[in-house]
């Protein structure tokens, strides 16, 4: 049961092939890693998957549906949610509201019902509050619900971004360098959180990472990108021991 099938995906920017003939297959419920040196094309691949860029060639099948060429909003509705390399929270909104925005397409009421404060407004708002608090609880952020997002410490901001992505009820969760800027303790906690999210929500997760402990610790299979091309693919332990990967990426 494949959640994601990427075939022959390529994109060039002004003559430079940023992603060249990318092929990845991710099974449902898998924890998959995408690694490679800086500039290898990992975030570009994410941007292709989420419709920020349109690929020159290739197809992207999400749970059997071709999403290549769709725009970001439609792709999210189709079931991909992502977090960003530089955390993109709604800074002025509360932690709770950040997640409630994520619930926007899952439950709602019309503008008129909102402005006139008809009964449906109260009913759905209550449901949204409950669901949002549930998600925050799962991520250990329930106590921060009322805080302004900008005031959260870095590690919690990352978790909030994940909570918000989960609120959109995705089939595939893309995490772009979730451990960036974290110390070993925080990374350990993050690894547990990611594993927990996969188990609890039956989620398929694709993550970009530089932290090899995290990659080795939770990713079942990985793809190594170098200069936009696949260098190696497969079971994590095998790929990480591949001499080509070691020389190209890990040094000695």
């Amino acid at each position, binding site marked *: 049961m494949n959640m994601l099938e990427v075939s022959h995906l390529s994109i060039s920017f002004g003559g430079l092939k940023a992603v060249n003939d990318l092929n990845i297959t991710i099974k449902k419920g898998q924890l998959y890693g995408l690694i490679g040196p800086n500039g290898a094309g990992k975030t570009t691949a994410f941007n292709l998957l*989420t419709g*920020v860029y349109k690929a020159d060639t290739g197809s992207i099948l999400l749970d059997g549906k071709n999403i290549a060429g769709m725009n*970001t*909003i439609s792709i*999210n*509705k189709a079931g991909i*949610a*992502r977090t*960003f390399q530089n955390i*993109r*929270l*709604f*800074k*002025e*909104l*509360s932690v*709770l*509201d950040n997640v*409630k*925005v*994520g619930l*926007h*397409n899952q439950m*709602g*009421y019309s*503008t008129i019902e*909102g*402005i*006139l*404060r008809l009964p449906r*407004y109260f009913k*759905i*708002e209550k449901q*949204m509050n409950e669901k949002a608090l549930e998600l925050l609880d799962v991520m250990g952020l329930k106590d921060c*619900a*009322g805080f302004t997002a900008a005031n959260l410490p870095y590690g919690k901001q990352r978790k909030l971004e994940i909570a*918000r*992505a989960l*609120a*959109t009820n995705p089939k595939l969760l893309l995490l772009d360098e979730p451990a960036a800027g974290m110390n070993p303790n925080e990374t350990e906690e993050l690894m547990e959180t990611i594993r927990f999210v996969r188990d609890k929500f039956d989620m398929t997760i694709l993550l970009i990472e530089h932290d090899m402990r995290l990659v080795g610790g939770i990713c079942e299979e990985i793809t190594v990108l170098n200069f936009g091309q696949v260098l190696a693919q497969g079971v994590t332990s095998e790929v990480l021991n591949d001499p080509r990967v070691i020389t190209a990426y890990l040094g000695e």
Partner: protein
Amino acid sequence: MNKKKTLINNLVTYGIVIIGYAVMMILQLTGSLSSSMKGFLVPICIYVIMAVSLNLVVGILGELSLGHAGFMCVGAYSSAVFSCAAQELITSAPLRFGIAILVGAAAAAVFGIIIGIPVLRLKGDYLAIVTLAFGEIIKNIVNIIYLGVDSNGLHISFDASAGTAGLGLLEDGRVIIKGAQGISGTPQDANFTIGIVLVLITLIIVLNLINSRDGRAIMSIRDNRIAAESIGINITKYKLMVFTISAALAGAAGALYSHNFATLTPAGDKFNYNASIMILVYVVLGGIGNIRGSIIAAVILYVLPEKLRFLRDYRMLVYAVVLILVMLFNWSPKMIEWRKSVAAKFKAKFGRKKTANEAEGGAQS
């Protein structure tokens, strides 16, 4: 937890408006209101609505709009045309004015959509310049529009050289808009009570919108457009929604305007770039995104030039200097640091005094 705070906040805002209304009415009934203040009552309502509706675009959606007065112009003209044309048909002033307000709001909303559409692809300063352009276009058009009504129906002409003759009206015809001379004889149906009612309606719409699913979506676009897209927020829909609602409210304010004065012309600084900028100043000084602030700022800044009359020729100069100083004081990071350190020193001083007194009191007992 958060909801209660917001609710109380909003109730305070409504309270301020209602109390303001009550105070003004009492002053008016006891004859304590100067005639100049009486003349301010409806305009204050107008500019409060303008400031609040602009804040929706600037503070909640996060886009700079420099043509807001253009919507007020559309609302003013369309509502006045309706009232003049319907003067004989609908004799009940409240009913006629009520419909006129709706006409003004609807016409402005249509323009809000017309402007919203090209603006969808644009961001930041490019969006701002298009709003400015639209404001100027509207002002230009209104300068050369001629409109008349006779038994054949409505006649419109844009021929400035032909003037009213270009309308080709029959004997029984009546000219409503005379080009640059505008509209005269609009029934003066506006009053303070209706003005305050419109202010309250504006507040209900805006505050309820902000504290709703759509409001959160709009603010998410403001805070991080790319993230908002990535979680499925329809940027286009909400940009259009905000422009339309904001324009409609400005149109209603325009209806208040045209029914408050005997003549309506595009001359002066009522509907042009300067007017749009003035409202933007109200919004920024009151606090970007702060609806209550917009109300207070609009009231104070509208009345201020009047109160500065004793300065005579130096009035606007002082206004300008005060504006610059207030901006520097409130927004300069160095100033903010300085204020914080002063406040901290203040607290420290009073904190020490308190413990010294407590020690004294304890020792004495």
